[in-house]
């Protein structure tokens, strides 16, 4: 292997990426009418872009790094990501056009804007805004883990002496670059670079999934080499059936509660296009399924296993690519994975910034003008990127996926207010608030209990709670959500619904 070729291809493509990121804002300024037509007029190309827009910020380091890592370590239960993706877009088909329609004409930027009107409660809105902001943090941290994994393999093969320091510096430099072009180009920059990211990822995944099984003599070989994984190898171990189902359904419910997913939904132009692009999104999941299988394939590639032993299970996909492909392709695919973390991190930070500006600052100071609003959001997005970066240097998780699953437990607590609040006036704002608190306390306590109080683990390792048979392992998000719903629904029955303010007051 010539590691300098890998590095050169990687750096060259990264420069293209940066140029695209900065250039996208100039492109808009230079030819606004053309872009308006392209992105908004709703022709076939427009629908395609909408597909990228919503899809691209949903498939992230979660897909390239976190799921393969745990399929490799623990086996079949983490293939839950596939049914989750299949299910979540069905849920989105039902809920999102309605939310989009509610948002239209009221200029909602976040789902919390809707909650604030529906429940006529600023306090509840602020509470949920902070919930969204906090839930995104571990999700962004996961993106950084993914980027770090690529850098670790690439730099680890170049130098052994200062590899850690070089990796950290490279990470910080790329974050400064990212912060700069998100600042200037906003969501447009993220969207255009997302197309580049997905083109590279798709190409890489297809090549890898065709070439590697042929070289090792078929998938069957890898499944034999993988022997016995803790949660099942060729099928799911019975003990983890409830874990699989609870992870699937809760993740499917959680995805469209995340502010960054709502961002994508609101940036599409019509309910019809939103519906069609959402309906096609499970196709995106095929790539996810193939990447998850890398966690099994790697067992048949001894040199890749060597790298994983050295650099950690988080490097399953990069190690497999490094072991099996020519230098230029390795650089190409590595860059894809790297920006596959970078772009979503940007979109997530933008959505956090929107929440803080719209649902916290604007509520406290209602008369700030739109210019100030935009400026604030820009700076907040920079701030959140670096908070996430600090987060990863401060907190250690054994498995990167667990970060996202903790985020899921947190964001699920906004479900009653958003998904149920969308459909009914019968929820009471105080009951929803109490339900939120009860769900949050239950979730956080159970996470601490499962990891530290019972097992005394050195770092975050699981989001399952082990019950007695026949329940066995269940995702904590399910328990916390049930507790939340119990308080919200019983409380609302006792206290009665809340009068919404919006429909009457905002007659413009």
């Amino acid at each position, binding site marked *: 292997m010539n590691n300098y070729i890998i590095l050169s291809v990687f750096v060259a493509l990264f420069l293209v990426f940066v140029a695209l990121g900065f250039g996208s804002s100039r492109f808009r300024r230079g030819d606004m009418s053309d872009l308006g037509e392209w992105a908004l007029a709703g022709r076939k190309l427009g629908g395609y872009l909408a597909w990228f827009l919503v899809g691209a910020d949903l498939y992230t380091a979660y897909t390239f790094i976190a799921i393969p890592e745990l399929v490799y370590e623990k086996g079949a239960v983490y293939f839950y990501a596939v049914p989750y993706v299949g299910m979540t877009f069905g849920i989105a088909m039902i809920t999102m056009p309605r939310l989009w329609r509610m948002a239209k004409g009221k200029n909602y930027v976040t789902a919390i804007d809707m909650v604030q009107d529906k429940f006529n409660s600023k306090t509840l809105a602020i509470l949920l805004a902070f919930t969204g902001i906090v839930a995104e943090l571990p999700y962004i941290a996961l993106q950084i883990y993914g980027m770090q994994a690529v850098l670790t393999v690439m730099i680890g093969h170049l130098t052994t002496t200062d590899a850690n320091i070089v990796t950290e510096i490279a990470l910080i430099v790329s974050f400064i670059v990212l912060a700069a072009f998100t600042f200037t180009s906003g969501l447009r920059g993220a969207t255009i670079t997302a197309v580049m990211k997905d083109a590279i990822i798709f190409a890489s995944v297809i090549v890898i999934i065709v070439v590697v099984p042929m070289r090792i003599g078929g998938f069957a070989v890898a499944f034999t080499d993988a022997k016995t994984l803790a949660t099942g190898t060729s099928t799911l171990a019975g003990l983890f059936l409830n874990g699989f189902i609870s992870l699937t359904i809760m993740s499917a419910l959680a995805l469209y509660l995340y502010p960054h997913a709502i961002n994508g939904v609101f940036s599409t132009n019509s309910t019809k296009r939103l519906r069609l692009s959402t309906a096609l999104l499970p196709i995106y999941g095929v790539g996810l399924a193939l990447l998850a299988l890398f966690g099994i394939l790697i067992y048949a590639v001894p040199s890749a296993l060597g790298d994983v032993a050295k650099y950690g299970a988080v490097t399953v996909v990069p190690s497999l690519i490094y072991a099996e492909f020519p230098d230029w392709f390795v650089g190409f695919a590595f860059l894809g994975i790297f920006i596959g973390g970078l772009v979503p991190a940007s979109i997530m930070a933008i959505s956090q910034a929107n929440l803080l500006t719209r649902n916290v600052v604007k509520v406290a100071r209602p008369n700030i003008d739109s210019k100030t609003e935009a400026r604030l959001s820009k700076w907040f997005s920079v701030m959140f990127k670096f908070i996430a970066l600090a987060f990863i240097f401060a907190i250690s998780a054994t498995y990167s996926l667990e970060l996202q699953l903790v985020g899921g437990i947190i964001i699920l607590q906004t479900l009653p207010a958003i998904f149920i609040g969308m459909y009914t006036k019968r929820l009471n704002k105080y009951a929803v608030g109490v339900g939120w608190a009860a769900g949050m306390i239950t979730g956080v306590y159970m996470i601490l209990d499962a990891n530290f109080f019972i097992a005394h683990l050195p770092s975050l390792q699981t989001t399952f709670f082990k019950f007695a048979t026949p329940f066995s392992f269940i995702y904590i998000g399910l328990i916390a959500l049930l507790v939340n719903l119990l308080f919200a629904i019983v409380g609302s029955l006792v206290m009665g619904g809340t009068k919404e303010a*919006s429909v009457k007051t905002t007659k413009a």
Partner: protein
Amino acid sequence: MSSEESDTGWNYSAKGTTGQKVIVAILLIFPMLIFGITPLYNKDKPTLLGLPFFYWFETIWLVVSAVFYVIAALMLNRMEGGDSQ
């Protein structure tokens, strides 16, 4: 209530016959239901290209789901009517 307000979705209800709504509901719920009943596909055989059933079925079901969802989306879009694309 002006027509503009009902368009904002706060008071929106889908047009279309009961029959159409039932078909759309089935098209949306059936793929999710299959994914949710894990014991249905938690088996080893038959294999495909060396992949156990558990893995290849879920992957292919993604594509089947997309087909179901797209038909539902097209029906809903027609039921919604109007001009906007």
